[in-house]
Structures are given as structure tokens and as C-alpha cells.
């Protein structure tokens, strides 16, 4: 590693550590890191701002913004609140049935919506049920932990569910259908194993339950949603737009040059244009500027490090580790999962994809990319802070101020989540490794 590579790599690492340590200032930290990277690149002759920005995968950002806006409009139809209510009724407010249905529902929703939105639309109803029915600390932790991991797995199941897969799609590393065909069964298997593991731990064994509390839960929920109706006028066209996007992603020949980002842009635009007034307001208020700026800064920093050739050398170094080729690949996946656990999915995926592209010359590319997406998904589940959905869930739970049988406040934080996170990490990483080894065999 030469001096320039070491400087930019160190700057990237320090920025990532600082943003993880000081999450309340993370945007300022990564933007400062990106500015310093650009300054360093200009002074060291690596290239000016124009060259650095030319390396930013803008189409990935377009997909994230367009799908985020589309999701917002879909949530405005009240579909998810009513669907969650139907789940509670289906489970008849019984804790274990509710846990299973909520997990499956979260997985399914996360496949098409971003993880933050999936939680924002499912958790309010679930937390209301927890408040009405009453839950134990143990049940709360396992239920919410399982839902968080299901959210990550659902996000990794499709090329549009979460950032790592969107990056693969946007950079053209994989086609939509290929990713879906390979990642979906693997994430479903991981979810199945995880649910089985959680059920064996009997999370609901301390939950107090009485016919009256179940009756009150269902009756109160019915009143809370007594006249809430689906906005069919918005939902119908939104679903049509979604079907159109899916069809375009799956069927349009690459030779036509219609990039997946353009499909997302058109689909998102259609959902906004259906009701121009509301669409304009959504456009002005609902773009996740924080996530956008964060990812842009990361892309800039990773791009500068790439210009130094460090990632190519790291991949070459990995291939020189005295292990059989499969062992090298497993080492890469484990490292990817652990790095994601520490630095979160965005930074890890952005940096590791550069290494994966080199490894993809030695191994079947799809196996490497899907393995990486699954390993990043495993890492996202390790700690509550590893994925953006974690802190969101923590704050929603804090806001709900749930209490246990003895009146004490129920907690869901970093420490409480650790057990679930470890289980989710191990199961998902094991599935990622086994799947990748089978694919390269």
C-alpha cells in the first residue's frame, strides 16, 4: 500500500468510525470526510471534483429516491395500516400467532419497500397491539428483533428491497430476474431457520393473556380504525405502476438501453403525477435528504480510494491468502458481514463491491454478488446500530413507552437486541456461505 492509498483508506476508516461513534453528527462527519477526500484527490493529482463525481453511481441514487417517493405514495393509501389490522384480527391478538404473521408480513413488505418505510407502516399497529394486549420484556425483544431481521432479509430478497441489492442492480452487476431467482430462496430459507430457532426459545411463555384483554385489544383496534378506508383511487394506479416497473425490470432487453433507474424514475413519477397537488407536496417533503447526502458522501470517498487502486490490491491480497479458493471466498463473506456489523450496510457494500468485482473474475460473478448481498444482510442484523432501521425501531419503541406486568418500562436497545442479532447474524451468514459454496462448486 503506497502513501496515497494509505492516506485515503485511513481517512475513509476514520470517517466511518467517527460516524458510527457519533451518530447524531453522522451527516456532517461523512460530508466533511468526502470534502477532505476531494481536496486530497485534487492536491495529489488523482483528479479534480469533476472526475470524482463522474465515478458516483448516480443511477443508484435515482433508484433510491424514486422508490422512496413511490413508497410514500403507497403508504398514503392506508394499505399497510389496514393490512396490519387484518393481521392482528387473523391472529386474534394471540402473541405467538401475531409474532409469526408480523414477521412474514414485514419480510414481504420489505421485499418491495425500503426497510425504514416497512417498519414505519407496520410498527405503529404492532406497538398499539402490544400496548393493548400487554407483553413481557422477553417477548418484546424477540418479537421486535425477529421483525428487524425479517426486514433485513426481505430487503435482501429482491433487487429493490434495500441499498446493497439496489447497488448491484444500479451498477449493472446483476440483472433483476437473476438476483431475484438466487437471493429470494436463500433469504426465505434463512427466515425459516430463524423463525424455527426463535420458536424453540418460546418467547411468549411469560406473556400474560386473558380472554378479556384479547377482547379489549380487538375491540379497541376496531375503534381506532373504525372508519379508515383504503384510498382505491390512489392504490389502483400505484399497483399498476408497480406491476409496470416489475415487468420492465424483468422483461425489457438490456439492448434497449432502458436502465433500471429510468424505470424506477418513470414509475415513481407516475405515482406522484396521479394527484399532482399531493405529488408535489410529497416531492418537496418526503425525499430522504439525510440518506441521500450520506450515500453521496460515501460514494465520493469510496470512489477516491478506488482511484488509488487499493481495492484491486486488497482483492489480489485476498486471492493470495493460503487457503483453497472456496476458503478465500468464505473469508471474504465473513469479513464483509463483520465490517457491515461495524460500519452498516451502505459504507460496507459501497467499498466491498469494488473488491467483489475483482473476485467475480475468479468465481461465478452471480455467486459472489449474491453471497456479498447476503453477508451484508447478515452484518446488518448483528447490532441494532448496523442498519438504519434499528435506531428507528428503538426510537418508535421508546416513544410507545410500553410497560410490563409489574408496571416497569420495557426496553429495546442495543443490549437487549444483542441475542436476537447474534442469532440472525449466524443464521444468515451460514445460509450465505452454504449458498455461495454450492453456487461455485
Amino acid at each position: 500500500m503506497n502513501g496515497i492509498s494509505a492516506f485515503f483508506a485511513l481517512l475513509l476508516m476514520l470517517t466511518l468510525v467517527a460516524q458510527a461513534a457519533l451518530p447524531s453528527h453522522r451527516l456532517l462527519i461523512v460530508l466533511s470526510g468526502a470534502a477532505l477526500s476531494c481536496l486530497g484527490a485534487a492536491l495529489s493529482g488523482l483528479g479534480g471534483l469533476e472526475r470524482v463525481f463522474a465515478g458516483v453511481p448516480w443511477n443508484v441514487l435515482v433508484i433510491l429516491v424514486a422508490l422512496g417517493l413511490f413508497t410514500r405514495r403507497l403508504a398514503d393509501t392506508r394499505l399497510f395500516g389496514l393490512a396490519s389490522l387484518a393481521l392482528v384480527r387473523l391472529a386474534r391478538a394471540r402473541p405467538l400467532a401475531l409474532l409469526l404473521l408480523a414477521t412474514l408480513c414485514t419480510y414481504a413488505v420489505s421485499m418491495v419497500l425500503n426497510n425504514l418505510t416497512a417498519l414505519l407502516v407496520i410498527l405503529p399497529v404492532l406497538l398499539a397491539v402490544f400496548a393493548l394486549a400487554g407483553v413481557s420484556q422477553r417477548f418484546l425483544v424477540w418479537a421486535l428483533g425477529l421483525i428487524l431481521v425479517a426486514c433485513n432479509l426481505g430487503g435482501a430478497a429482491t433487487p429493490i428491497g434495500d441499498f446493497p441489492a439496489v447497488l448491484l442492480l444500479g451498477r449493472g452487476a446483476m440483472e433483476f430476474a437473476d438476483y431475484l431467482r438466487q437471493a429470494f430462496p436463500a433469504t426465505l430459507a434463512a427466515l425459516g431457520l430463524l423463525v424455527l430457532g426463535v420458536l424453540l426459545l418460546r418467547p411468549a411463555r411469560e406473556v400474560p393473556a386473558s380472554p378479556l384483554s384479547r377482547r379489549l385489544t380487538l375491540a379497541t383496534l376496531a375503534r381506532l380504525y373504525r372508519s379508515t378506508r383504503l384510498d382505491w383511487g390512489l392504490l389502483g394506479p400505484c399497483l399498476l405502476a408497480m406491476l409496470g416497473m416489475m415487468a420492465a425490470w424483468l422483461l425489457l432487453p438490456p439492448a434497449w438501453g432502458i436502465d433500471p433507474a429510468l424505470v424506477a424514475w418513470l414509475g415513481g413519477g407516475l405515482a406522484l403525477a396521479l394527484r399532482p397537488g399531493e405529488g408535489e407536496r410529497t416531492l418537496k417533503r418526503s425525499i430522504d435528504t439525510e440518506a441521500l447526502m450520506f450515500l453521496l458522501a460515501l460514494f465520493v470517498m469510496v470512489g477516491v480510494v478506488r482511484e488509488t487502486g487499493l481495492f484491486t490490491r486488497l482483492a489480489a491480497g485476498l486471492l493470495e491468502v493460503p487457503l483453497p479458493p472456496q476458503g478465500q471466498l468464505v473469508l471474504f463473506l465473513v469479513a464483509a458481514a463483520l465490517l457491515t456489523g461495524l460500519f452498516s450496510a451502505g459504507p460496507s457494500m459501497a467499498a466491498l463491491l469494488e473488491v467483489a468485482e475483482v473476485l467475480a473474475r475468479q468465481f461465478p460473478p452471480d455467486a459472489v454478488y449474491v453471497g456479498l448481498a447476503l453477508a451484508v444482510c447478515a452484518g446488518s442484523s448483528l447490532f441494532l446500530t448496523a442498519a438504519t432501521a434499528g435506531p428507528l425501531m428503538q426510537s418508535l419503541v421508546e416513544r410507545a413507552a410500553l410497560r410490563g406486568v409489574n408496571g416497569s418500562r420495557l426496553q429495546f436497545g442495543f443490549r437487549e437486541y444483542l441475542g436476537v442479532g447474534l442469532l440472525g447474524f449466524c443464521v444468515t451468514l451460514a445460509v450465505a456461505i452454504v449458498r455461495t459454496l454450492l453456487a461455485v462448486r
Partner: protein
Amino acid sequence: MSALLEQAFRLAAGELGMASAAWLFVRESAASGGATAVAQLRDALGRNWPVLDAVCAGWQGGCQAPAIDPQPLLPALQGVRQLLLVGYEADWVDALLAALPDPGLRIGLVTAGDPLADWSRMLDNHAGRIEAVDPAAFQTWAGPRSVLLSFVYGRSAQQLFVLPAWLRIAGSDVRLQFRELLGWHILAVPLLLYPRWLVATEAETFTAVPEVAA
């Protein structure tokens, strides 16, 4: 167990209103275990939730359904263009909306109350008919054809028991900015305990408080 029941009632009261939630809990308890269950509910939650206690006492005394009649309010709402609600009682608001003669009347709800309440979920039940109004901006609704309406839960001599939000909204200057400051007395049963969660205010802070049918 009563801590969990209390938590459940607080959530219901935060989004449905204390009286609506109390009637719901009493109805469901009675359907589940009859008079014994209502007595147990009163024992468990009555002390902390006086409105629930009053509703339980009323139920035990033979008043087995709330008296919800918006008719006495309607004369005061004739010709009004804007109606701003301070406080929310789901059963009473639903009845009022159904009875309003002018479908073009603009209705707002001041979003001040339990911090745990999910205001969008509450307003989704009204399909855009009620707008959320920030407490700091409620005076943008003022005008000669605007009315403020809040809920009254009981009375004692010259004082009325109302939601704390009413005291924050109904300052002496506000009286001049709205055509009417209406109080809707919604509890047909007397409050027997100290009205926790409510505040006492002079009856003169309202321009009219139509009486509820016994």
C-alpha cells in the same frame, strides 16, 4: 395485570378520548363478565381514571349507554364556516359530523393531547373531513364565522372540568377572535373522584355549554 390494563386504557383514551374509551371498556367488560367484570374494571382503573370511574358507576346505576346528542349544538353552528375542535372524543365527533347540516363546513382539530396519540391514525377515520391544526397556529382559524368547540366532562359549582388543552387555547384574547366558544357537556354521569387528567375552569370561558340529556 392492572398495569397492563392501565396501559391499554391510556392508549385507547389518548386516541378515542377518555369518555369514548371508558364506554368501550365498560361495554366489553360487561359483555365478557357482566357486572362483576365492570366492578373489577372500576377497582383496577377507576382511581387513576375518574372518567372511567364515573362511566362504571353510571353503568352500575343503570345508565348502560352514552348519551350522544349533537342537536343542542346545531343552532350555535348555523352559518358557521370554520369549526375548530379542542380535544377529541371519537363517539361524539362521529355523531356531530353526521349531524352537521353544512357538508362544506371546514373542521379542524388542534393536535394537543396525549403525546402517545397517533394523530394521523385518528384523522384517517374522517377521510380528510377533519384537518390537523398545530396548537401554535390555531388563531389562523379565527374569524366572525369561526367557532371553537371543546368537551366538558363535569361541573362543580361555577367550575367546569375540561381538557388541559382548553386552558392553553382559550385565552382572554381568543374570546374576541371566534364567534362562539362552545363547550359540549358529554358525561351524563357525575365525576365522583378528583378529576385527574382534567382541569377546572370557569364556566365563563365558554359562551355556551348545552346540557347533556340525563
